[in-house]
């Protein structure tokens, strides 16, 4: 195995380098804060002859995803990047990419949605597209951003899956922050990810086929069912690919990664860069003798319900920290977790915390507060307030 070069790079550079190692053929992209560095870097790689690919500098994110669809259906390996309003603009095409079973990979700089307009981090953009049929991965740090891009291509292109995938890195906290990253050698990635050679048909006059047919009520539901079967099959594929990645590159990935959960009464459930902060809070609380653990969701779609049930069932309380909100309901992860536990006799109390919207800081103390509130609910034996917002500025609310 080749040496893994140590570099100190921004998150966008990490996802761009991960993508470059996967040798995409076509990269249609449109710049948007905070993911702009991705298309810039890909353009540089192409301009310098480091990557044999074509950029398509489209006029909108809608056209970016449309061109991804055209190129992928022609048999090319395709990637793009976007964020926030850009993902909202391409929303229509996300469903068409997955419905046509095209393994496109998108790097995301997770950013809040307008209004008010805001360029900072939360997960609302990708959460709003959670039902689009894409696989969703969330990185804790830049290393994960790079590694997950490589894993995403391999999983998406697996013949049992054939679905698009997005890899989220948090706006600014990761996209614009320099971190130490180990970059795998090209020849090792080439072995891990062979060229994309779909066994199904592609757009080719030698074998004419119609893509994107009109599906009447006699067929539509079966198409959707087949798509759901594919994402269910991806559960095993993800485990296989993560295992092989660890064997080849030495870094372990799981759909859910635990920290100090074995004997924990209360477990914090997090996604993305807030996890590092939560881990520090767990260390501090453990030092005081509190029986607290941490579970990090790396894969949000498919939702790893069996893994979460196994990890969380033994706890008395679970604090689900959502960096998103469904107005009039709950945070998305909380809703999904409640659904996973719906038919279980033994289940922990679930509390939902909304935190970090539009770049609001989440501190170690925030998690200590979250822990305490969850512990209080466990002590009281009931959840009086299912959803609480963390770090509200009372002065602004007045």
């Amino acid at each position: 195995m080749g040496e893994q070069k140590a570099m100190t790079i921004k998150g966008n550079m990490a996802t761009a380098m991960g993508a470059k190692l996967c040798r995409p053929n076509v990269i249609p992209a449109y710049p948007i804060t905070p993911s702009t560095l991705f298309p810039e870097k890909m353009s540089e790689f192409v301009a310098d002859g480091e990557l044999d690919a074509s950029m398509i500098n489209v006029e909108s994110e809608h056209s970016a995803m449309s061109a991804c669809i055209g190129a992928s259906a022609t048999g090319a390996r395709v990637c793009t990047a976007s964020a926030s309003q850009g993902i909202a603009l391409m929303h229509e095409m996300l469903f068409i990419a997955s419905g046509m079973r095209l393994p496109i990979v998108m790097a995301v700089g997770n950013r809040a949605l307008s209004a008010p307009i805001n360029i900072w981090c939360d997960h609302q953009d990708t959460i709003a597209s959670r039902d689009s049929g894409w696989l969703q991965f969330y990185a804790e740090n830049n290393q994960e951003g790079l590694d997950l891009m490589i894993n995403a291509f391999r999983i998406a292109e697996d013949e049992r899956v054939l679905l698009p995938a997005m890899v989220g890195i948090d706006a600014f906290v990761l996209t614009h922050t320099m971190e130490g990253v180990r970059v795998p050698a090209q020849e090792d990635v080439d072995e891990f990810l062979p060229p994309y050679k779909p066994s199904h048909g592609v757009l080719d006059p030698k074998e004419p086929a119609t893509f994107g047919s009109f599906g009447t009520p006699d067929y539509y539901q079966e198409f959707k069912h087949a798509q759901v079967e594919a994402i269910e099959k991806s559960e095993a594929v993800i485990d296989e690919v993560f295992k092989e990645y660890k064997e080849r590159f030495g870094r372990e990935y799981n759909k859910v990664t635990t920290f100090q959960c074995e004997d924990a009464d209360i477990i914090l459930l997090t996604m993305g860069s807030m996890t590092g902060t939560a881990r520090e809070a767990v260390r501090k609380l453990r030092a005081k003798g509190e029986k607290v653990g941490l579970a990090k969701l790396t894969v949000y779609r498919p939702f790893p319900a069996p893994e979460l049930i196994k990890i969380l069932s033994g706890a008395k309380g679970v604090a689900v920290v959502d960096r998103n909100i469904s107005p009039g309901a709950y945070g998305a992860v909380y809703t999904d977790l409640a659904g996973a536990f719906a038919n279980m006799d033994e289940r922990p109390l679930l509390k939902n915390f909304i935190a970090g919207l539009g770049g609001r800081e989440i501190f170690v103390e925030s998690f200590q507060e979250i822990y305490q509130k969850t512990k209080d609910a466990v002590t009281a034996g009931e959840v009086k307030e299912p959803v609480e917002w963390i770090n509200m500025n009372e002065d602004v609310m007045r």
Partner: protein
Amino acid sequence: MTKEDLELFASGHRACAGCGEGTAVRQILKAAGPNTVATICTGCLEVISTGYPETAWEIPIIHAAFENSASVAAGVEVALKELGRKEGVNVIAFGGDGGTFDIGFQALSGMLERGHDITYVCVDNEAYMNTGIQRCSSTPYGASTTTSPVGKLSIGESRPKKPIAAICAAHGIPYTATASIAYINDLKKKVKKAVETEGPAFLHVFAPCPTGWRHGSDSTIEIARLAVETGVFVLWEAEDGDICNLKITQKPKKRKPVKDYLKSQRRFAHLSDEDIEHIQKEVDEKCEKYGF
């Protein structure tokens, strides 16, 4: 058997009797030949030709959404080049007038500006026909549609037709032309020229819709011809976006009165002699600009 004998848009599709679009697509594919990949928009064309598990297409096609035939085609064209399969293969992006003049205009402009080797074909029937005859920026002045209905206070559509071909030509693209299903040889010649041209080409193809224009299904071609003979729709071609030096490809020896054209369709049935005179004047002025 020659390329012209190949039926690449098969019979048995679900177009209305007398559909101008069906004729247009069949003839365009005959001219372009089997080494063609096409993209199509959501709309009549997709509905009539791709109902799963059947297809009318003997060439590879992809339908993604309504507003993006041009950008999907851009992805196809770049991928074919990148994978070394573009040589000898035409990429044609089909759009209706709604998907071209209105909702797909941005994607079309982007594709033309970037210089993709794509022939964009707009098959124009002057309203949103698949959803039930709603007005579009392609709808001509005076036409009654379901969203520009004639009424006590309304003449029907109140705005003139958007000059889409001239706008596309203004991008400086190598080849732009207007064509009509009433002049098949002219249409095919232009298709061949368009696909043989390196870089983007735009074809604006006039294709009556019996259902939307409310005329008999046996008079589609006749009405398309009247549009040209009256000067309502002018057939021309321009190279490198030079619309000051465009070439008129079908010049009627003596223009027929627009009344003949307008009276052939019930969408114009409400127009008074005064209204028709007004339209005649506008057509006269336009034809004068074109030099006939």
